[in-house]
């Protein structure tokens, strides 16, 4: 660095001490002056191993893109009919077993949603057009008459002798399976304050369907006379003990 104090020429302006003035400049620039210049860029060849490393990564990235399949392949994300694999090493125990009474009532409650339009979610009817199911003798008494009413509907006066505004209850039996009937009956007999505590089995429900099909006036709603005359009896068939453990989905007894 050309130090100002080495400048041999005297300054023409006597009031400025050249050495001091330049000294101030040097102090001002002390940090900047010791900086090195940024030299021109080097032109070294790119090493082969750098190219090789980048090439390997290019191959990996290419492999990732190659796995991408077709552009909008939703089938790869959402497989049709996908069922999650069983966890390895864990046996399929199925759903937790429930008591028969709870399992049948739960299923029956779902079927009852068809009935609740008239009889109400609380099963109390409206007192004018639709009779109450809570405490009804035809619901809690012998099973056969309840089955007949559900399957065929009912017209005229009901168990209390009163005739409701609707006059006739339509048949509900179409498309009903024995399980549906059994669970619905179990639900009706154990809800809304009814506490019969028994479980109507599918076998009993099947028997009810047979009885219903053998009626004299097949296809017509039952009347209170017909019920009193023919159906004041329990359905034949084995009942299920209410605390038997069953599979809540299939209703088969749990192992």
């Amino acid at each position, binding site marked *: *660095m*050309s*130090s*100002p*104090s080495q400048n041999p020429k005297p300054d023409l302006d006597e009031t400025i001490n050249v*050495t*001091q003035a*330049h*000294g*101030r*400049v*040097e*102090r*001002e*620039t*002390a*940090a*900047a*002056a*010791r*900086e*090195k*210049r*940024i*030299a*021109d*860029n*080097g*032109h*070294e*060849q*790119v*090493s082969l191993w*750098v190219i090789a*490393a*980048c090439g390997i*990564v*290019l191959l*990996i*990235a*290419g492999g*990732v*893109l190659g*796995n*991408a*399949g*077709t*552009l*909008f*392949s*939703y089938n*790869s*994300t*959402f497989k049709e009919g996908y069922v999650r694999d069983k*966890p*390895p*090493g*864990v046996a399929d125990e199925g759903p937790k077993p429930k008591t028969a009474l709870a399992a049948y009532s739960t299923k029956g409650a779902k079927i009852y949603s068809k009935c609740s339009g008239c009889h109400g979610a609380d099963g109390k009817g409206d007192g004018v057009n639709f009779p109450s199911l809570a405490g009804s003798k035809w619901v809690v008494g012998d099973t056969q008459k309840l089955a007949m009413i559900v399957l065929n509907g009912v017209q005229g006066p009901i168990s209390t002798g009163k005739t409701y505004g609707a006059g006739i209850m339509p048949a509900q039996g179409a498309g009903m399976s024995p399980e549906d009937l059994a669970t619905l009956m179990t639900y009706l007999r154990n809800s809304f304050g009814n506490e019969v505590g028994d479980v109507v089995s599918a076998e009993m429900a099947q028997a009810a369907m047979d009885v219903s099909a053998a009626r004299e006036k097949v296809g017509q709603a039952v009347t209170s006379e017909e019920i009193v005359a023919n159906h004041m009896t329990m359905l034949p068939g084995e009942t299920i003990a209410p605390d038997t453990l069953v599979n809540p989905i299939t209703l088969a007894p749990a192992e």
Partner: protein
Amino acid sequence: MSSQSTNPTGQDALLRAGIDRSLRHPVMFFLTSAAAWLAVSLILGIISSAKVHSPGFMDGCSWFTYGRTQAAHVNALVYGWGFQAAFGVIIWLLSRLSRQECRAAGLILTAGHVWNFAISVGVLGILAGYGTGMPWMEFPAFTWPILLLTYFAIVVWSFVQFKVRPVGHVYISQWYLMAAMTWFPWIFITANVLLHVMPGNPVMAAGINAWYKSSLIFLFFTPIALGTAFYLTPKVSGRPIHSYSLAKLGFWSLAIIMPWAGMQKLAGAPIPYFIPYVGAASTILFFIPAFTAAINILRTALSDPDLVNHSPTLRFTMAGIVGLIVMAVAAVFLNLPGSTLTWTQFSLSGYGFEILALYAFFSFVMFGAIYFIVPRVTRREWLSRRLIKMHFFFSVYGISMIAVAAIFGGIQQGIGQEAFDQPWQESAAQRAVNYGWLITISWAFILFSNIFFFLHLTVMWLRLGRRSTHPTLLVADHGHSPHGEEGDIDNCGPGTASAAH
């Protein structure tokens, strides 16, 4: 150091000293408040990490629940520390490279205060429960236009300086910095408009958010740090950048590849099937711009290992470049869709990768730049070589522990999460606990060193540093300095009659 060819002329040194002086207050303001925010962010990071292994810690106060402190920690790190360190470096470097004094120091300083105010409101907003829940965009929505306007007020002067620069060669650092400054508004406006102003499908919103996060790392923080390292390394070592063609390859591959990255975080989501794969592939390809730039810089600096060892600037910068290489390898390793991607999507690994990018790479280069810039703009040398060494070692060990713990702990946690036949508490949560401890302890180390760094920096701004003409180097013996006899920079420096020789 007295060879004539490398010595600048006096005129040149005057110009550069003038540039430094014109930028003293804005640069020191950004760097100091950045360091303060870094300390705040680390405290929040310690609290949130402590919640991973000790959930009962401070559980009585809703302000310090995990969801809030973690978000506040990351946002303070990104916008408080990262952006402000970048601002300080951008305005100084581009003034120097364009050889223009800063003529808007007051305006930049004002904008800097507004930026800080917005960050404070944002962090308090998150802690008070008004966060948006979008990663890296958790500040309440009203802050983003403020941040955008402030950003323009801060960097637009550097564009002007670039425009009126003396015609000629555009240096590598200028490519990277100008590119980052242009890319950021694009990323920021796109993400905020699509998420806050015209919100669309929520699944795509999550994708845009992931893209924003990754773009901020790859298209803002990465080029800023690379541009800085490409300046500092030849400047301190006095050697030309190893290979110009390698630098060009690195820059253009970054520009072309990285905008595609980010969406791999949505692998398995109901978006077009190819998008996560494109994201994963381009994140893997980050290796190419990162590795080429890192090799270029390392080759330049390591031709003189002693210099790297003695210069605080070079030591931090090289540590950052090593961090970049680790980050590039992690980018390959963490994004293989068949295996690792599922483990890293929702685990600590993602955080580990972000910390690698933000701290092990970006922050270390910024520390290097700060150790270079501050003595020039304050005309004081760093007070204590021991403080610098302590800052370096605590940071290096701390960040290595965090990177290892977060990435490998995250993979363990991810494997635990995938084991869906096991209770989550036992498989995923329990596996992360010990790594959580490691992360908390490491942040505590880093916080310790950074509080002293912040104090050191503040003392420098108050001009209480060493009044020496010699740089503070990390050697015990200053007797054989290449800069000649040591002088007092204010009173009897080398320019006075007695000291001149």
